[in-house]
């Protein structure tokens, strides 16, 4: 049997465990060296959600929790492709989405930011890539919000994502930012990524997908861990 061996994290673009400017890493980052292990069946498999029954409006956060009207804020459409490092598209893979509303407020019960909740916006959604690895969803552009990391700390506008990919080595949780955001240069979470990786987290404005009289378009591609070109032969 031959099997692909997946690449490990590329620390030229991936953040370190400990990033002291992001204060809560100090007590939560593993401090001992990680133990490098050979990938086994456990790592080379993972959950498949191809038949997960997505709700009709899971991919449309502007519609999936309407109570009495449209959510407030700027409608956007986000699209892109999920690939691996080898450039191969990843079809039928699940993307989970969550974010603040236009005012920068999360529905989460512990979010104490004094900005209004929107009764018509939950801020959670999901979509699946198509047979060519492409995805698309609609939402409201999230607002910036303050946090307690340091005096006058504000998170730049961002959308949270969770992806599964081919197996558990492919697991990715990340955040997408918006072009030209002046808060990026002050954000220790964004700056926790080495300089070479930072621009990979910033979406691009995309006029070609912008829908006239309806929604601005942004493009954001995901690249999951890839594998060596040639399978290893396992006897």
């Amino acid at each position, binding site marked *: 049997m031959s099997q692909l061996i997946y690449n490990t994290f590329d620390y030229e673009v991936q953040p370190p465990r400990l990033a002291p400017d992001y204060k809560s890493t100090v007590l939560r980052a593993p401090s001992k060296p990680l133990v490098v292990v050979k990938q086994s069946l456990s790592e080379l498999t993972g959950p498949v959600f191809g038949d997960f029954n997505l709700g009709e409006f899971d991919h449309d956060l502007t519609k999936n929790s309407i109570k009495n009207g449209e959510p407030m804020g700027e409608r956007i459409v986000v699209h892109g492709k999920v690939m691996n490092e080898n450039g191969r598209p990843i079809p039928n893979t699940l993307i989970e989405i969550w974010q603040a509303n236009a005012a920068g407020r999360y529905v*989460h019960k512990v979010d104490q930011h004094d900005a209004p909740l929107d009764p018509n916006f939950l801020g959670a959604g999901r979509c699946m890539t198509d047979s060519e690895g492409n995805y698309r969803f609609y939402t409201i552009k999230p607002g910036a919000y303050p946090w307690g990391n340091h005096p006058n700390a504000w998170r730049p506008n961002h959308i949270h994502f969770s992806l599964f990919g081919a197996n558990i080595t492919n697991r990715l949780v990340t955040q997408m930012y918006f072009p030209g955001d002046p808060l990026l240069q002050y954000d220790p979470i964004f700056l926790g990524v080495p300089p070479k990786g930072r621009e990979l987290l910033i979406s691009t404005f995309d006029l070609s997908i912008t829908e006239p009289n309806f929604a601005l378009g942004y493009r954001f591609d995901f690249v999951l861990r890839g594998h060596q070109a040639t399978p290893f032969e396992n006897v």
Partner: protein
Amino acid sequence: MLQTPSQTVGPYFAYGLTPEQYLYDFKSLSNNELAKPLNEANVVTVVGKVFDGNGDVIPDAMIEIWDTQHQRFGRFGTGTDPQNRFIFHTFKPTSVGGQAPHLSVIVFMRGQLIHSYTRIYFEDEEELNAQDEILNAVPADRRNTLIASKNAAGYEFNIYMQGENETVFFEI
């Protein structure tokens, strides 16, 4: 192509990733039942806490479990149990491809820019544990951090992010 960098799951993942557990009005993708304790045989319960470098229990971690043998996946946040434990109902795996029985674990939380991988092995599998290639790749004095202890209710597996008992995390 370059990998998309990881970013923290943050403190507000619950309504997106574990909505039903936290009582939000959105359907959950998965929960803490990799197996149904009442309907399926050989189901065990694995519970534990996640500790930070001060020894405080972390109430906003999200734990994912992958059981490759049974192809089951589970996810649970530590924010709803009164003691901030994670609780999973799962088949107890048997040997997988020559390895000792184990579950794969992925740990996410605010304060982690990138997730951590570990494994749960079982105390009552001494013989298979002793031969397990991955356990044997771990320094002998840290192997116990990967082994769940057995009690009347099932298994207990605590995760220590730092400190003397720091859990072994893997680069996979």
